[in-house]
């Protein structure tokens, strides 16, 4: 089971609710992914908290835990204000905290992020900070009181997969008691598997599913990828080695085959 701020979940695939061709396809994709936690962008989809009730009821129908997201916030104050709006709207202390440094890369502003996390934790929020794979930043977030840290694999929506495997591995090794979620940049189920094989607790996805030609089928594919990666991690993966290690005895192999 995955435990996040005291709540237990069996699915390790968190999913976003934006960019689908229709709300119906969004619902079907979330069901196909088996996700129990759905992120909802507070800024973009609420327009001053006047979002159509119809859209909310479609999310509520799913019976999932909503993780509001301060998507696109560019400063500490804006992120904190948005988090408070989200708490009112969704009646939850959970917040996915995004503080964006740059509109082109959607790179996290890690300085602002730590500051905002400090403010929000003191205010009683349970914070899911979206950060880079930098260890010192992750440690500051933990110091601030975050029990969950969500490093990117690569920039939001880039579909590049894990670009700094060693960095993510280091985070896992150094923060064994923190729930680590790879957030952003995953493009293929194999990327999600890789993150889980590294020992990550979960992954968070949106674009790779929502913008697939068949989002519902892709959601199922990611579900399998996450499960395979997690099962492989628990089963204990072999470390890589430089030479082949034969799984059948070489005794009896003719020497002209053995040396080729």
């Amino acid at each position, binding site marked *: 089971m995955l435990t996040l701020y005291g709540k237990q979940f069996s699915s390790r695939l968190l999913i976003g609710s*934006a960019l689908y061709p*229709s709300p*119906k396809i969004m619902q079907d994709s979330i069901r196909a992914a088996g996700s129990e936690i759905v992120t909802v962008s507070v800024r973009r989809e*609420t*327009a001053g908290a006047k979002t*159509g009730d*119809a*859209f909310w009821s479609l999310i509520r129908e799913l019976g999932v835990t909503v993780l509001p997201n301060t998507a696109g916030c560019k400063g500490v104050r804006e992120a904190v204000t948005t988090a408070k709006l989200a708490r009112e709207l969704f009646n939850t202390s959970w917040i996915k905290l995004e503080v964006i440094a740059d509109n082109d890369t959607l790179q996290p502003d890690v300085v602002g992020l730590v500051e905002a996390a400090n403010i929000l934790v003191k205010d009683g929020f349970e914070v899911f900070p979206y950060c880079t794979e930098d260890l010192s930043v992750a440690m500051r977030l933990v110091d601030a009181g975050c029990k969950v840290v969500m490093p990117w694999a690569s920039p939001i929506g880039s579909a590049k997969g894990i670009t700094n495997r060693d960095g993510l591995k280091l985070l896992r090794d150094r923060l064994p008691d923190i729930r680590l979620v790879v957030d952003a940049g995953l493009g293929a189920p194999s990327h999600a598997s890789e993150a889980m094989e590294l020992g990550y607790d979960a992954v968070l996805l949106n674009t790779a599913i929502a913008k697939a030609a068949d989002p519902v089928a892709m959601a199922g594919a990611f579900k399998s990828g996450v499960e395979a990666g997690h099962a492989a991690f628990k089963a204990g993966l072999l470390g890589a080695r430089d030479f082949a290690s034969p799984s059948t005895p070489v005794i009896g192999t003719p020497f002209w085959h053995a040396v080729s």
Partner: protein
Amino acid sequence: MVTNLKPHAASISVIGAGIAGAWQALAFARAGHDVTLYERDSAAMTQATSHWAGGMLAPWCEAEASEPVITRLGARSLDLWREALPDTPFNGSLVVSHPRDRADFDRFAKLTTHHARIDATKIAALEPALEGQFRDALFFADEGHVEPRDVLPRLHDRAASAGAAIAFDTNWQPDDLKNGKNNIVIDCRGLAAREDGDTDLRGVKGEMIVVETDEVSLSRPVRLIHPRWPLYIIPRGDNRFMIGATSIESEDRGVSVRSALELLSAAYAVHPAFAEARIVEIGAGLRPAYPDNLPRIAIDGQRICVNGLYRHGFLLAPALAELTLGYVERGAIDNEVMRCA
């Protein structure tokens, strides 16, 4: 199925004279039925969702984010537009992208058909104003566009010439239906149909901006790849261009600064001269949509509801009118769009 309809003596009340209702009235009037079209707004139709529409007739571009039924009905609609209004421009549409959105451009090309990938020379030949702006583009040669605010009154006129009576400034309630055997009500009220309990409907905000400049001239809509929305620059008459539209899950009717920035910068990305254009109008409409964003013809006895046209009103209305007519006259059922009570 309704079996007691008498095809050539039907009395048809169409409620709502937006694009869906206008086409229903036209189709039934032309087929010789006794049609009355009711509209609570005045003839200017400024309250209608259609007033804010782009008027794109782009069934193949739409395949990027829509199901095949939209393309099927849309392609049929193109023929019906041609037949009803032969001067409808079918100059095709161009799809271009900013270099940073290249991956989305390639995705668009992969998910759509009926296009040719053209180079800078060909772009300049089609749209001289865009010379040197883009390395390549997708050209959807068979697509067209209409100017909603011109075309809607023309459709009303056509329907009237074909014998339909049109009552503007008239509230009509479906409960008024007298259950005479030949009375059929076609409810095309869009979001207003929620008042009678169609709770599946929701409004999806679409924001648009009209600008005016004589420095740019385009003869077809240009679609700029955007990570979230299908954004078009659509040439109107009188040096005007409509830039639209966003697609936001909200029933607020305001236009946000963020949306305005995105729309205007889209125009600027297509041609820098748009920076000097005058802003003529900024507005937003609420499109009626069902959870699957697909249109629906719901049949319940003498009452037929045509709704959920979402972003595709001008694209789908003719084909939906043809389907409704086919049902009333022959009992023909289209399983993809029709639901029978």
